[in-house]
């Protein structure tokens, strides 16, 4: 028997019971749709995270105070004030870290601000003049502060778009004075609306010289971060290693297990975040696969009903020359066609849902979320749905093929 004819038979068999066919494949549709949705969103999330990480510049190395936590007890000693001015000086020394192109200390904190009657709680971000180079963001109004401003503890501030909207509304902010921690600061620049960049929301920030922030706002003498940019991409690892050596020497640490800081490259971050989203995606996909299993059992059930209902047809087909293999093929193909149809529908439903969610996400959280049609997942979905038909169709199809023609013809 030819395959084309076998497919035609399968189509006729399925068309004979349209509503039953639709209900039966619903389980497969839902299962495949869930898998496509999860894989598509997982891919989207991963791309978003990678884009965020790369927003900081892929050559950057971050020094974070404290011990990288490896267990609950580690939180007792977090050494959050371990990065000091002398470390900054040591890192700036070209003989210690020759491959460092720029080094920026960072301090941050949350603080109330006001302009006239308007108040707003903003994030203080104390940085140096190299900030625009590292974060690739420049004020669209005014200009960034200079090295002299940093050295002179200038009370200048660059505000994010949200801060500007909250405090000034539509009126011009440039040159105005706002109060932060009851100290007047002059607005020298306004940042364009950026949304989230590399886990920082600049829209919500007041960016000022770190020296000013340390002394007048936060009252601290240490740093929250050092961000170091390597001169060349191939020097990132070397830079990270030199930074570690320099800081250990500066902190008199001989046992690396007692480091009171840790160094994170963007590549590390990207790969560990990528791993997390991959594992999460895989986990969710395996949960969604359970619905495919349930759908498969539904297929088997309905195929068994169909085989019983069509006992006389099977008997007749055998009487006019169908072999066991012909009957097996017919019912197996019917099951596979059924599940594959469900698979195709599921791919469309899943992709559509994922597309809608990507629109909602990019509107709602302002994230730069892109819809990704998961071609590999679609292929997997098609293969899996076909296989479900094969696996759960084989038992009913065998039952059909083994029917005795005489018994089958007598069946009422």
């Amino acid at each position, binding site marked *: 028997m*030819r395959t084309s004819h076998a497919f035609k038979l399968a189509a006729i068999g399925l068309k004979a019971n349209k509503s039953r066919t639709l209900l039966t494949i619903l389980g497969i549709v839902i299962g495949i749709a869930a898998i496509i949705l999860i894989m598509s969103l997982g891919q989207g999330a991963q791309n978003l995270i990678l884009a965020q990480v790369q927003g900081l510049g892929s050559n950057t190395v971050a020094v974070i105070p404290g011990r990288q936590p490896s267990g609950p007890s580690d939180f007792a000693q977090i050494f959050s004030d371990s990065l000091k001015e002398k470390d900054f000086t040591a890192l700036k020394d070209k003989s210690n870290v020759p491959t460092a192109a720029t080094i920026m200390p960072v301090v941050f904190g949350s603080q109330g601000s006001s302009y006239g009657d308007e108040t707003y709680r903003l994030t203080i971000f104390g940085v140096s003049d190299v900030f625009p180079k590292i974060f690739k963001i420049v004020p669209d109004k005014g200009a960034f502060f200079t090295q002299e401003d940093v050295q002179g503890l200038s009370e200048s501030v660059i505000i994010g778009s949200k801060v500007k909207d909250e405090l000034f509304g539509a009126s011009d902010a440039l040159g105005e004075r706002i109060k932060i921690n009851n100290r007047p600061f002059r607005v020298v620049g306004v940042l364009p609306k950026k949304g989230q960049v590399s886990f920082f929301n600049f829209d919500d920030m007041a960016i000022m010289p770190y020296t000013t922030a340390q002394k007048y706002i936060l009252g601290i003498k240490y740093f929250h971060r050092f961000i170091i940019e390597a001169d060349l991409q191939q020097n990132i690892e070397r830079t990270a290693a030199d930074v570690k050596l320099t800081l250990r020497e500066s902190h008199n640490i001989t046992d690396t297990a007692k480091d009171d800081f840790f160094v994170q490259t963007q590549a590390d971050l990207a790969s560990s975040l990528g791993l997390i989203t991959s594992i999460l995606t895989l986990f969710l996909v395996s949960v969604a696969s359970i619905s495919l299993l349930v759908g498969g059992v539904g297929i088997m059930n309905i195929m068994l009903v169909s085989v019983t209902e069509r006992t006389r047809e099977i008997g007749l087909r*055998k*009487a006019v*020359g169908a*072999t*066991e293999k*012909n009957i097996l093929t017919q019912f197996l193909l019917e099951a596979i066609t059924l599940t594959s149809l469900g698979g195709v529908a599921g791919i469309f439903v899943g992709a559509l849902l994922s597309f809608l969610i990507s629109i909602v996400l990019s509107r709602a959280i302002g994230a730069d979320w892109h819809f990704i049609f998961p071609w590999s997942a679609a292929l997997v979905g098609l293969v899996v749905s076909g296989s479900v038909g094969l696996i759960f169709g084989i038992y009913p199809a065998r039952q059909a093929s083994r029917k005795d023609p*005489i018994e089958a*013809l007598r069946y009422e």
Partner: protein
Amino acid sequence: MSLIEVKNLEKTYTEGESATAAVCGITFSIKKGEFVAIMGPSGSGKSTLLHILGFLDRPTSGEYRFDGKTISEFSDDEIAKVRNEEIGFVFQAFNLLARTSVLENVKLPLAYSGVKENLWNNLAEKAIASVGLTHRLRHEPSRLSGGEKQRAAIARALINNPKVIFADEPTGNLDSKSGETVISILQNLNEKEGRTVILITHEVDIAEHAERIIHIKDGKIESDLPVAKRRKASHI
């Protein structure tokens, strides 16, 4: 030359401890081109015999030679091929596929044959014309009368140009007029085309359309005689 030759044919159904013999040691032969009626009361074993002759069942013991070949040596797939190419079956209950047109029903055996698909329609239309159902080509069985259903079933039996047609009580579900039409078609196939026809019936009127009647009782041949005054079906 004998088309069908059986020797000491036996069929025993075993259920648990007890064994029931449906056919016990039947020997006879049927020549090519013969029209034979097999008669007997229900439970006599005539249906079992027909099923064995029609390759739907295998004998427990004894020999069955069809067209010179010993059937007991055939594999299941070879048996399926014989069913498809060498014989045609007509059932009392018609056994047409529901919601499927006459044309598609008649084409059914071709799906399991080596005949090229582009020839199917032509062959099926010819077979349907030979039983006078051309006007019902696209109709589904539910819209046909009993007689028309059985004529469609005969067309299906003829589609692969079989050597022999087995008819299991073909008029059993029909009124006498439709029965007459069906039997006349079978008679025509036998006389004009020289096809071997083996018919099961319990009606003497129907059986007398054959050339020879074999009476079966309790799984054995009671009598095997030529029909003295053969009936001629009038209508086609």
